[in-house]
């Protein structure tokens, strides 16, 4: 009897949830993307889209109004299901899941009072700037402006409306907003856009990480569909919310037509004449706006080209610094490695056993130092965007064999056999041989380093358009809580066994970045005391 009741209860709740799901949506004021209209109704491009999907799926929407950062905190705590209009960033991806089809693209732009004299980024020096609290723009703005050595007073507010009010009252000199909000509202507050444009971003719906995935999928499905058809709700919504507010009232038109019809042919002709005239006036207005826009685009493009050049200057400086460091660090090592090598070869005369032993230690330390320098330079180059990969055909077998030869002496020293199992269909690959060997040597080197007995094994095969390469060992293994940190830079340092094994802890993060630059992914499986397997997938056919 009791069982039956429980069953009924379960059944009852499950079915009611499926039929009428209530979805809580964060609402904040960022017109025209998300906002509350004068009648208190949630509106905007994002709202149109979620309402569309909700209508199709039979969900009931419940809006939870608040500021932008309240919305984000609620999302994080699971108090609401979804937030509209969230710019994607790698940092945010740790906390939120995003839908996949981009809803809008936007960029940030500084707005100032008309005639403020603020045109370019340099004009912001010594000024008071308002940014939106907890938004990606603050960080992006800092990054964008830091290269110019400016001194600014940054104030953060919780919504754009406050920002524009403060600007129009003269409480600050410029505000950073997105192009949507700016283009629609600036005029009303006596503000104008400036040429300070930065950080193009992609805007999405976001949920708390790994929750409401079905919801995101449903949005993606609808969005992909809507974006295909230029007459769809998506484009209609874009046009509706982003057009400038030109006073142009249709009801007076209608009245006019009704009147004209009632007054007979003459009046109607007169009416149509006036109508035509009105249309002409509007057309002229639109043409003027259009010309003005084009002019602005030309100006903006010139400003952007200038900003781009400055950025490239900074880039060149960075490259020059890295090249110099690389040279300066390696030159002394050239002497150390070169001369110890010569002496150990006996080229400068015979050595006794003790001298040989000691010089070998110098040699080992020097080559270790060289590999550390190479690691640090590699990660700096990757971070500075200076590392480029090539795409040339080569034989993957040869690359594996050559990497095996490099690691062989280390393995022999520990008495570990190195095995390679290469499937017969593995052959030519179009990728970066040098980088692939670097990845292989790194993984095999780690395998040898963390294994005392057993075997190191490299397996390579093809699978659904991917080249799959796995390096397995029978070593100490990795604890599961360490696994996720494994590919982050400098990680060896905070693990318990760290200092027993030399290395910068940069190797795996370099491997990960290299694999990604080559269009692939890398992963690890491990069992404590049994060993680890690092596997990387590379595309057999590069798209570029």
């Amino acid at each position: 009897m009791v069982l039956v009741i429980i069953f009924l209860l379960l059944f009852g709740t499950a079915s009611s949830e499926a039929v009428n799901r209530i979805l809580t949506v964060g609402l904040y004021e960022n017109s025209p993307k998300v906002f509350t209209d004068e009648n208190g109704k949630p509106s905007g491009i994002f709202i149109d889209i979620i309402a569309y999907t909700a209508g199709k799926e039979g969900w009931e929407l419940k809006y939870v109004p608040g500021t932008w950062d309240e919305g984000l905190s609620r999302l994080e705590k699971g108090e609401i299901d979804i937030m509209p209009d969230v710019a994607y960033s790698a940092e945010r991806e740790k906390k939120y899941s995003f839908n996949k089809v981009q809803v809008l693209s936007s960029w940030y732009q500084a707005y100032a009072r008309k005639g403020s004299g603020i045109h370019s980024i340099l004009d912001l020096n010594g000024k008071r700037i308002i940014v939106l609290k907890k938004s990606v723009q603050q960080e992006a703005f800092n990054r964008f402006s830091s290269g110019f050595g400016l001194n600014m007073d940054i104030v953060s507010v919780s919504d754009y409306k406050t920002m524009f009010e403060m600007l129009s009252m003269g409480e600050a000199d410029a505000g950073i907003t997105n192009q949507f909000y700016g283009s629609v509202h600036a005029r009303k507050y006596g503000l104008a856009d400036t040429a300070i444009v930065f950080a193009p971003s992609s805007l999405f719906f976001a949920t708390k990480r790994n929750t409401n995935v079905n919801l995101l999928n449903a949005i993606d499905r609808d969005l992909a569909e809507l974006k295909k058809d230029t007459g769809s709700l998506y484009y209609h919504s874009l046009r509706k919310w982003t057009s400038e507010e030109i006073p142009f009232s249709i009801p007076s038109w209608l009245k006019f037509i009704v009147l004209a019809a009632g007054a007979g042919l003459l009046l109607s002709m007169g009416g149509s004449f006036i109508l035509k005239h009105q249309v002409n006036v509007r057309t002229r207005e639109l043409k003027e706006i259009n010309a003005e826009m084009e002019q602005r685009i030309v100006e903006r493009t010139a400003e952007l080209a200038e900003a781009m050049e400055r950025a490239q200057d900074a880039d060149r400086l960075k490259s020059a610094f890295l090249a110099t460091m690389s040279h300066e660090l390696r030159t002394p090592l050239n002497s150390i490695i070169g001369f110890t090598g010569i002496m150990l070869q006996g080229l400068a005369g015979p050595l006794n056993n003790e001298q040989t032993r000691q010089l070998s230690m110098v040699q080992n330390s020097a080559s270790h130092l060289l590999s550390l320098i190479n690691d640090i330079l590699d990660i700096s180059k990757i971070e500075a965007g200076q590392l480029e990969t090539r795409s040339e055909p080569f034989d993957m077998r040869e690359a594996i064999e050559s990497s095996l030869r490099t690691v062989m002496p280390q393995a022999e020293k520990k008495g570990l056999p190195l095995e390679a199992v290469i499937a017969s269909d593995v052959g030519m690959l179009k990728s970066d041989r040098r980088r692939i060997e670097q990845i292989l040597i790194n993984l095999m080197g780690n395998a040898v380093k963390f294994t005392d007995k057993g075997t190191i094994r490299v397996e390579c095969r093809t699978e659904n358009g991917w080249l799959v390469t796995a390096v397995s060992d029978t070593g100490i293994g990795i604890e599961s809580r360490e696994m996720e940190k494994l590919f982050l830079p400098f990680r060896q340092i905070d693990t318990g066994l760290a200092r027993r094994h030399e290395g910068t802890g940069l190797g795996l993060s370099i491997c990960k970045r290299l694999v990604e630059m080559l269009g692939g992914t890398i992963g690890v499986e491990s069992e404590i005391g049994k060993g680890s397997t690092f596997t990387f997938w590379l595309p057999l056919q590069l798209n570029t």
Partner: protein
Amino acid sequence: MKKILIIEDNEQNLYLLTFILEKNGYGVIQARDGRSGIELAIKNIPDLILLDIQLPVLDGYAVARELRKQQALYDVPIVAVTSYAMTGDRERTLEAGCTGYMEKPIDPLTFMEKIAQYL
């Protein structure tokens, strides 16, 4: 005896390369800057030129281009020896007319093998 011209401004490196090559039975001609390197190359027509890239005044790329203009040096292999190892360095040296590219620091164990490849 085969003659190898080394163009290198760093004294220690110049000594290191000279020492290894002489011990292995090669004749070495030393040049400490690009200008005299070009002159010595024209005068001696060596069997191989080892060229440092980071040279003062006239850098290695310019030296290589200059050397390649000489009819008599047309077939002489030029190997760039550089500690730059930045994106595009290898391509740049090859474009300038070098035959090969070696990264510093050199490893005495494999150095002679690499040299033999070019001779």
